[in-house]
């Protein structure tokens, strides 16, 4: 018991404990703890776990080395392992196992795989300044939803709802959360409009561009053809697309991003 207490109090023991705690938090903790509070979560991708672990590791190294006494204690067992004659067997084992481990990890990285390569896909790529919509030029910059200044909003909402249920429901779902009955068959999966990171961040002109041009019309960073979203300009009129956009915002309760006075749009990145 006292040995365990000594290990916990020792800076090296603390560092190892912190590394393990951080790993468990980033893998199991984030995946399952929010669920206890009724919040949705999922396992964290490996790339992000790696980034988090490197960050935590830097923090832990700073913790053990910014105090002279703690740093001395931290190094003591490591130096003993690498220098003292009595630790020869352990040292030999470590110096054999460490290269083997690194070799195995390297092999895991470079071995041939049949998985789809991991791509860096931008969900909200930069829109073009203007597009060609059904054969005519449309300036996207500063473009507002014309239906908001024409006719009754309630009517447009109803029209939009009809269009949504006829065309969008199978993928984007009844609750607009991307969980339509076909949704799970696609990769990437359809966007959830209830997510604060999707239409809540965008102007209506951006959403119009995405609906009109679909997956094939994505710029390179958005991985065109990767998305199964059809180019709806081939099936819907301009007003129908604007109406469905009104439905999306009204139904989710989000406000579309407005254009700033003077034409610029404030920036929010990744």
């Amino acid at each position, binding site marked *: 018991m006292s040995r365990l207490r000594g290990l916990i109090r020792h800076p090296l023991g603390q560092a190892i404990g912190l590394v393990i705690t951080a790993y468990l938090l980033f893998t199991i903790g984030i995946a399952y703890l929010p669920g206890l509070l009724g919040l949705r*979560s999922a396992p964290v991708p490996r790339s*992000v776990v790696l*980034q988090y672990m490197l960050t935590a590791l830097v*923090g832990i190294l700073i913790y053990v080395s910014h105090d002279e006494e703690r740093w001395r204690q931290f190094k003591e067992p490591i130096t003993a392992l690498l220098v003292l004659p009595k630790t020869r067997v352990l040292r030999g084992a470590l110096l054999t196992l460490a290269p083997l481990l690194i070799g195995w990890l390297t092999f895991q990285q470079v071995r041939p795989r049949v998985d789809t390569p991991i791509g860096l896909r931008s969900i909200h*790529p930069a829109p073009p300044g203007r597009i060609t919509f059904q054969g005519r030029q449309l300036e996207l910059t500063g473009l507002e939803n014309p239906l908001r200044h024409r006719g009754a909003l309630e009517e447009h909402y109803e029209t939009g709802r009809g269009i949504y249920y006829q065309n969008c429901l199978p993928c984007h779902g009844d609750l607009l959360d991307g969980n339509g009955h076909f949704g799970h068959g696609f*990769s990437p999966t359809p966007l959830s409009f209830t997510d604060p990171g999707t239409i809540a961040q965008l102007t209506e002109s951006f959403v119009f561009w995405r609906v009109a041009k679909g997956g094939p019309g994505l710029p390179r960073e958005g991985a065109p053809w990767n998305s199964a979203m059809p180019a709806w300009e081939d099936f819907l009129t301009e007003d129908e697309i604007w109406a469905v956009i009104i439905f999306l915002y009204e139904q989710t309760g989000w406000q579309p991003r407005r254009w700033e006075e003077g*034409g*610029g749009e*404030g920036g*929010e990145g990744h």
Partner: protein
Amino acid sequence: MIDALTLVQAAADTTGAYGSFPGIGARGAVWIAAQVHLMFAAFVLGVPMFAVITELIGIVAKDSKYDKLSKEFTRLLVFAYSATALWGGLLLFLLTTLYPRFWGHMARVFGPSMWLYAGLFFVESFTLYLYYYGWDRWKAGRAKWGHWALGLLLNVWGTIVMFIANGWLTYMMSPPSGVTAETLPEQVGLWNAIANATWMPINIHRLIANAVFGGSIVAAYAAYRFLSARTAEERAHYDWMGYVGNFIAISTFIVLPFAGYYLGREIYEFNQQMGITMMGGFMSWLWIVQAVLIGVLFLAANYYLWIGMARIPGAERFRPYTKWMLLLLVVCWIVWGTPHTMIASRAELAAMGGSHHPFLNILGVMSAKNTAVNLMILTTFLSFLMYRRANKRPTVAWAKSGSMIEGAMFALAAGVVVFYGIYGYFVEAIVRIGFSVYQVAAVLACIIGVTVIDLFVLRGAESRGEIRWGEMPERSQYALFVLAITFTWLMGLMGFARSGIRQHWHVWEVMRDTSAQAATPALGAAANMISLCVVIFLALVAFIFWLGGLAERAVQRPEPAGGA
């Protein structure tokens, strides 16, 4: 038929417009020359700023230590000036031979300013030589003030030179409205071209960034000299110099994000597509890399201060707090570096239900990131404050209430930052963007308010003991190297973001890049190129550091006994 004609026209336009360069190509050659030139230029413009400030402190406080420090800064400048000019010359030759049509356009728009630029470079160089070589000659009385004025002039010339060059590069990014592909260069108007939309934001951003960069390189120089010092006196001097360099770098760095924000706003104002390309398009991953690197800077700076507190009597009373400050910094760093769109395998994407993580998604937006970075700035400022207060015991009667007011200001600033960070999730985007202004204002007000109060609280304070300069563990000096390397890398990386958002245009929507290398490079390729530039620059800087030491040893070496 029309397509064929377009192709013929494009071929005719491109003929003779571009040269070729072996191995790395024309763009690679110009990229390296421009980037390394810019790094040296930033150094030679940043260092004179605090050389004159430290010289002034030396004159007013009658402390020769500051004068020696200022002279040492300037010695580095003499070597770095030649490197700046050499790389500038190389860049000019490369532009003339590899991009003759583009450079012809620029020369026709900016001709007279280029002559002025060259003339001012001469004046600036000679002012520097007078400033450095006249140091020991004009070291007392009125002559010393004259000497100091030379340093001031050096800054004036340097700033004008930079403003002129900024006019050229910002014209490429944001040419004045009304200038089109059909406009003749002579019709643009020189002042109209210089005073474009992003000129002043770049001027301000670079002025501050140069001071940050200069401070970090000087600190790295001091670290190098500290590690190679042979006497306790040398170690003490270079320990102190490293501290001053780090202080300058970090204190000016704290205001840099605000200047960057101003620049970003102006880019959006000029062209929203350019702005979105920068922040939300294919360049957006650069901001995650930037967040990671700036996290390194904050942690390295704090680490250096915390280690340094071991040589300050009285600092031990602050030691229990550092681990909590570290925890806060690491948590904020994690928040800031969390990508909104995650790199994930097919199985991971399916589990998340898309590229956005259902829980970590809340950390991917600007509300979380602005909150994190502002808390990191506040924590770093607190470290500086603890460092400054460590060996002092206030004697004013109201010291306790003064400290409590300072504490309340910290709490209030942190409260405002966190409140608007959380509130930002409940309002629409356009309102949320405005919240960052309140967060920044709260942090700046706290920094200014606490600094002023602290100056008065510590007036006439008793000393708990002198700082034991030189008694610094060697590992602390590597933190200074990390700072310099990270700043250099960041500069190249964000420079690429600024330049890359022009995409396939030499001059945005005025002159198209029709060369074979017109495509914007992928992030990985750009990062490799930037890293190469950083390695070239740092190798040359290491050589300059070595020369700096060599020159000093030559001066210190005693005359041989006897003689002819």
